[in-house]
């Protein structure tokens, strides 16, 4: 019951999703639409688990006065504030111009954009380290990256040549390598899906 029924659910739902692809009958489409919505609903319940886990981890850190517990307080304050502001006026709480959205625009957006922009510095340092390695492969990588980056910059008489070269690299050799990767990923995903459907791969059930 604890292990057999989940395997049966996986098999039935998996086989159904495969069959419905080959038989585009409206009754199959009907169940397909419902199944997709159920998955989304389950996902939202799973988000609650995530919130619970974050809260529990932060609260235990505060209670134990672990190093950096003050930062966990900030996490809890941020979470509680957003939940309160997001629910106290019903679905109008998330309309543009509310305090909830102000926090989104003035806290969430700048921090997220800055975190991603930090990568510009680290990627430059990674490029420098790759340059120092001085192997054929690192050189191919860096020269290609340089051609792609200079594509949008005016370079006088060689601008046209560089743009043509960048465009050729993207549409021909880059496409060839991407195809090899996509085919590999496709075959891997298909094999893994089959292993899951037939109960060979059961890691999703955890232990015990």
């Amino acid at each position, binding site marked *: 019951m604890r292990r057999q029924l989940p395997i049966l659910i996986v098999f039935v739902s*998996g086989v159904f999703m495969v069959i419905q692809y080959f038989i585009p009958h409206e009754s199959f489409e009907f169940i397909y639409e419902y199944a997709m919505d159920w998955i989304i609903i389950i996902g939202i319940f*799973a988000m609650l*688990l995530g919130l619970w886990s974050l809260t529990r981890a932060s609260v235990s850190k505060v209670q134990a006065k672990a190093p950096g517990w003050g930062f*966990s307080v900030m996490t809890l304050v941020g979470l509680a504030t957003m939940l309160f502001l997001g629910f106290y006026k019903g679905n109008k*709480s998330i309309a543009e111009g509310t305090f909830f959205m102000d926090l989104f625009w003035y806290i969430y957006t700048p921090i997220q954009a800055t975190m991603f922009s930090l990568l510009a510095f680290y*990627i430059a340092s990674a490029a420098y380290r790759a340059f120092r390695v001085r192997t054929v*492969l690192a050189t191919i990588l860096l020269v290609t990256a340089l051609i792609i*980056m200079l594509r949008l910059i005016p370079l006088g008489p060689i601008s046209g040549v560089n743009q043509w070269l960048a465009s050729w690299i993207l549409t021909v050799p880059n496409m060839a390598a991407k195809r*090899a990767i996509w085919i590999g990923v496709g075959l891997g995903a298909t094999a893994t899906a*089959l292993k899951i459907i037939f109960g060979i791969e059961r890691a999703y059930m955890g232990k015990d």
Partner: protein
Amino acid sequence: METIGIWIAALLTLGIFSFLYKDNPFYKFCESLFVGISAGYWFVTTFWQVFMPKLADNLIAGRFYYMIGAIFGVLMLLRLFPKIGWLSRWSLALVVGTTAGLYFTRYLVSNGMVQVQNTIIPLYVKGNLSQTIGNLVIVIGTFSGLIYFFFSKEHKGAFGGLAKLGIWFLMLSFGASFGYTVMSRMSLLIGRMDYLLGTWLGLIR
């Protein structure tokens, strides 16, 4: 509110940038706040924009099949109770099975069949040298790339040579992706600098 908001956003931006010097309490404060705010934001927006229309509105409209999704959702929460936590596997099984079945055909068609079909192209195009070279490069590049990913045979001799050619193509592709990533991160960096120097300090217009 706008002025206060701009100041808060600017100080938080500086807080995150302070990590470039070293990990410090100012950065950790911004990071922790971000974790809480983002978790709350995504839960609330998903609740109002997805959960309510998908579940509550459908149940009110009399579409009771949606109760099945809700029941499986509640089962998922039983993970919090160790004695009956195993029941959450049922919901997980539904998600895993459905996704596996869906991806089986999706990946087989879009990543397998379509890519193979698009690679089976003429190696000689009459009167069009650039197309001929392009097609040759695509076929050789894809084939050698696949050889590189084939680990059931040792990469030696002609097979090893093809695998080596494959990794050259892969490096070229990674270089292109690297170039794009650098450009996108630089554009974000310019955006943040514009915010600090323009919107916040008013030094550039």
